[in-house]
């Protein structure tokens, strides 16, 4: 029902979606998010995390989502270690009998994960130098809108 996994292995979104969709007897709606490493001036990413706390924090986010919307299952898989362009960094899936609930739960978990799960990213530039990624205020804004209550009123 609530599943979180941190892995150094490559994430295969295709098989994750197959397993997530199959686990339930026709749940109705499944929404997924996958975040990929972009290419261009970044030649690699490295993700570091706080073992234990990461799983605990993401677990709390999933339970919080489930208390707000009638979700059936939520799954998060986050990769750590070295990640190359095009590879998947994170996968979030949510299922529900109601599509609006599945959309909200998936986006909610992703918005909280970005700013509240102890993971840190650094990027390698074309010259081979590593730079820690700075947190963005816009990510805090996206999380905060879930507590503003505006979205629920309009949903």
């Amino acid at each position: 029902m609530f599943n979180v996994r941190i892995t150094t292995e490559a994430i295969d979104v295709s098989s994750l979606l197959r397993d997530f969709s199959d686990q339930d007897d026709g749940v109705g709606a499944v929404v997924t998010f996958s975040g990929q490493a972009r290419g261009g001036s970044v030649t690699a990413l490295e993700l570091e995390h706080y073992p234990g706390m990461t799983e605990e924090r993401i677990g709390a986010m999933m339970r919080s989502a489930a208390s707000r919307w009638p979700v059936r299952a939520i799954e998060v898989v986050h990769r750590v270690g070295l990640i190359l362009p095009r590879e998947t960094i994170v996968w979030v899936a949510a299922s529900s009998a109601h599509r609006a609930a599945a959309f909200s739960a998936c986006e909610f978990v992703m918005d909280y994960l970005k700013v509240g799960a102890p993971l840190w990213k650094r990027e390698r530039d074309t010259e081979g130098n590593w730079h820690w990624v700075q947190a963005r205020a816009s990510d805090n804004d996206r999380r905060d809108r879930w507590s503003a209550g505006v979205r629920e009123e309009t949903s």
Partner: protein
Amino acid sequence: MKIRFFANLRELLGTEELDFADNNFPSTVAELRVLLRDAGDEEFAAAMADPNVLCAVNQRVADETLHIEAGDEVAFFPPMTGG
């Protein structure tokens, strides 16, 4: 008692863990930050004073006034940038 450091703090300090004798342990997060300033270079000291740098006690982000007790798991890290 051990204190863990992540990301750029770990790099600045050159280690991911510091040992503190329990009898020297400060009582609050704010006091611990002051004590830790001497553990690294100037940049590390500045990070310890930076309110954006977070402290987790027992795997929860902690308020500056939180009392730390023997056996607590304490960690410092910059704002999170996962996903």
